């Protein structure tokens, strides 16, 4: 194409170098890809960690060459994992998965890729902030990973890093430099998340193309919008929690410390409260669960509608439940603290608000299932992952009813019952949603198709192993087994359920190996996959009206105009089973 014709299109096609195109890109599609590739890397690191500590849990005191290979003689003498390293791995696994993969990775990838494409905008409101958002994310990832190589090991007080444990270097080796790295990394992460979130909100509210009213937005965009609002409102609170912790650690304040005697001496700290930290942490921590879940649910809504060839059932109810979940998520944080000595009446209030969340969640689950009813399901890999998500959302969700009940929580709090619950309801669900999104929008991201057969193999191994890993954990929890135990040798009462740990670990190993299928497919297809067509899934949304090859500004010509909602699948007024949003209404056609 000559420069003259490009000029005719009126876009800003200035000359791009490798550096501005691939590294310091301000194009939302490229930034989305950067987030994705970083998140895939981080996910493999975190997954490898889980395999290592699963080996320890299934066969404590056994010697493993592979453990020594990864951890070295210092942290795994004779191939047996050091108990401090066990806590460190559990901590960093949680931190990476929750924040770097399922917050940064999930929102970063799909909000970036899809918001401008699905609302019909040339790019994000601010390309620069968007680029900064990625680079803060990259920097915080690097710092988190580098903390693994510190002398005293990385932070190891659990991903929630409760003080005083995390505030006192005397309390455990990981609370030294490792904890400092953790706090610095997380602070940068929060900056990244805020830059991204503000950008998403502004873009969605201001840059919608002609005809794209809020009630015509695809559910993905609704989910990204509410997610971004939750992040912008709650991450600053985590930031202040981190800041106060930094002060306590390094500048002699006592926000979280009081009456402590450790290592043979009394600390000069009075009047602080460790519980204050927990309130601040969970004020983010609980909305965080939905910051993770909503984008996955949004992605699922889109994929299930497209591949059932049916409108998503109850669009308005779906939007309403996203909003309700978003609102309620801010007033439930206390359910993480029923056994901290909280005022019992306050506990009761949190029981009520928490259980209310079950209502919009149930509505969503029912709507997904009804969307499948009398559909014409096309089993793309993305569809398989989406259906699996609905199952795990339900299975993990129902045990939440037990944990939300303060009375029942007393005895299962901090046991494997909780580990099973949240790994299924948000870990497994969100990962399934993320993978569904990758399979579905890979052609949009890379202009090539992922291999479908490998996708099937990846899916079935993953789905079998995921429940295989997390479902038995409920039984460990009901037997009273606490989480974060290096081994249970001190407690004979758990001997009867220790076999479960072997079952879990075997599934974890197979499931992890199965991810290599994905990794291979992902890398191979980026370079050598079948070249994609413009609208491979016969979808209605605007991103499929752009050319396969990326152009800066998304549409070569003028921006598309929207005439209908995104879910006109199998509309009896039309012969085709899909009607893109850009198709004008027929005469006499009634909008939904």
């Amino acid at each position: 194409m000559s420069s003259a014709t490009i000029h005719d299109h009126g876009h800003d096609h200035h000359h791009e170098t490798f550096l501005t195109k691939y590294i310091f890109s301000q194009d939302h599609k490229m930034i989305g890809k950067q987030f994705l590739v970083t998140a895939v890397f981080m996910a493999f690191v975190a997954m490898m960690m889980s395999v290592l500590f699963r080996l320890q849990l299934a066969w404590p005191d056994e010697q493993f060459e592979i453990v020594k290979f990864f951890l070295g003689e210092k942290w795994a003498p004779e191939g047996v994992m050091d108990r401090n390293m066990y806590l460190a791995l559990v901590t960093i696994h949680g931190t990476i998965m929750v924040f770097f993969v399922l917050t940064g990775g999930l929102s970063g990838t799909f909000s970036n890729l899809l918001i401008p494409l699905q609302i019909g905008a040339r790019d994000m409101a601010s390309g620069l902030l968007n680029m900064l958002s990625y680079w803060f994310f990259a920097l915080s990832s690097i710092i988190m990973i580098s903390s693994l190589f510190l002398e005293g090991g990385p932070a190891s007080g659990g991903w929630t890093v409760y003080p005083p444990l995390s505030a006192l270097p005397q309390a455990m080796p990981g609370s030294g430099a490792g904890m400092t790295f953790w706090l610095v990394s997380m602070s940068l992460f929060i900056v990244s998340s805020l830059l991204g979130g503000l950008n998403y909100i502004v873009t969605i509210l201001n840059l919608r193309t002609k005809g794209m009213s809020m009630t015509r937005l695809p559910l993905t965009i609704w989910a990204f919008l509410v997610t971004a609002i939750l992040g912008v409102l709650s991450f600053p609170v985590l930031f202040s929690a981190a800041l106060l912790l930094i002060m306590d650690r390094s500048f002699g304040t006592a926000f979280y410390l009081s009456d402590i005697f450790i290592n043979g001496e009394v600390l000069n700290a009075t009047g602080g409260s460790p519980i204050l930290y927990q309130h601040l942490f969970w004020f983010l921590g609980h909305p965080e669960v939905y910051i993770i879940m909503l984008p996955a649910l949004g992605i699922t809504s889109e994929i299930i509608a497209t591949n059932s060839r049916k409108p998503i059932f109850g669009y308005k109810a779906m939007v309403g439940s996203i909003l309700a979940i978003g609102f309620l998520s801010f007033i439930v944080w206390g359910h993480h603290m029923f056994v901290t000595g909280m005022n019992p009446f306050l506990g009761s209030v949190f029981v009520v608000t928490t259980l209310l969340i079950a209502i919009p969640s149930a509505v969503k689950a029912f709507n997904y299932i009804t969307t499948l009813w009398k559909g014409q399901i096309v089993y793309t890999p993305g569809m398989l992952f989406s259906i699996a998500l609905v199952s795990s959302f339900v299975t993990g969700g129902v045990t939440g009813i037990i944990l939300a009940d303060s009375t029942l929580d007393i005895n299962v709090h901090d046991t494997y019952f909780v580990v099973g619950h949240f790994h299924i309801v948000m870990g497994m669900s969100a990962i399934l949603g993320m993978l569904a999104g990758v399979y579905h929008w890979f052609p949009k991201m890379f202009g090539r198709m992922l291999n479908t057969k490998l996708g099937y193999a990846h899916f079935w191994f993953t789905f079998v192993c995921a429940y295989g890993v997390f479902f038995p954990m409920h039984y460990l929890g009901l037997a009273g087994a606490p989480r974060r135990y290096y081994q249970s040798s001190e407690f004979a009462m758990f001997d009867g359920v220790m076999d479960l740990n072997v079952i879990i670990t075997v599934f974890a190993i197979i499931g992890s190996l199965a991810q290599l299928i994905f990794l291979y497919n992902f890398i191979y297809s980026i370079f050598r996959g079948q070249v994609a067509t413009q609208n491979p899934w016969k979808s209605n949304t605007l991103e499929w009206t752009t050319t396969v090859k990326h152009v800066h500004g998304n549409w070569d010509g003028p921006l598309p105009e929207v005439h209908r909602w995104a879910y006109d699948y199998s509309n009896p007024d039309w012969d085709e089973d899909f009607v893109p949003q850009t198709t004008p209404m027929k005469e006499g056609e009634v909008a939904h």
Partner: protein
Amino acid sequence: MSKILVLAVVVLVIIAIAQLSKMYELSRKVAKKREEDISLASNKLNAKLMLVYMVAFYAFFIYLTVAYGEHMLPVAASEHGAKVDTLMDLNLVFVSAVFFLMNTLLFVFASKYYKREGQKAKFQPHDNRLELIWTVIPSIVLFAIIISGLVVWNDITDAPKEDAIVIEIYSKQFDWTARYGGDNNQLGNASVNFISATNPLGVISSEVLVDKKAEMNAEIEAIESDLENKVFSDANEAALKTKLSNLKAQRARVAGFKYSDEELALGYDDKLVKAEFHIPVGRQVHFQFRSQDVIHSAYMPHFRAQMNTVPGMTTVFNITPTITTDSMRTITGNKDFNYVLMCNKICGSAHYNMKMDIIVESEEDYNKWLADQKTFAKAYGLEEKAKDLAVNNK
């Protein structure tokens, strides 16, 4: 050697996948098949696999329940625990029912409605009646769950009875200490500022106050004179100065502790025990929890009891044991069975073996056991006080 083997296997697996997919790729090219064209056979296969998956998943559920059901916690050994268990059973039945219902609908629909050539899906954007039903019904059920839970919650968190036995559970990295209120069933005041080898929980009596002040004064004087008369490296001098200022701050804090004589006398008869503690069956126990260093959690699963122990504050939990250790040994058929207190909040490297045994026995046996335990007065070396207490006891 095994390292190389593992590596070789991984490499081989990757090569195998690569080769297979290359073959597949070639065959696809020949057939000119596109990745997004899902054949009827593929659709049908995945749809049927959904059903197979559901059956396998349910079988796994049933297998786990049958095979491991007997290893779950035995019957609750406390009054409120029995209520918790009833509620838990009801809830488990309810959530299992929802689990089966929803998953069955999902997997059955997924297996039934795969795409057939030439057919169109049902166009059904919404159905207000249906949506109302599945909003209202869960709301009513949840209301019932909330109310039934809160009734028991109120009960559990109620104030202790007058005659409840007061026991302090004290945590530190990495063990537990139990402190009994003694003859007066009242705990003496305590603070981390008074912890010493003979006073591990920092119980405060008039002697402790005097001793501690004297000890700190002596230490402060010694450091001051050292700083004046000896030569230190910069680092050592700074460390000494920090220590000095901390000691002075502690001295100021201690000077602020004002207690009446009565309050100072409360702790003499307290009894500290480690490794195991005893409680009588049928009497309410009012636990008070304190922590010395980081947050721990006192988890007593057999009594359905758990409470965090938090430095700087006191937390509480009441239980009334209903089954003695001996009876529970008969019930479980395990002659080595013991009730345990374990730590359930990550607290450092030895978190996993922070344990104390709990013995539930008849009130008579309990009184006998308690009489044999050393009083704080005795442990602290206050022979006269200890003798007085022993005389009063008789």
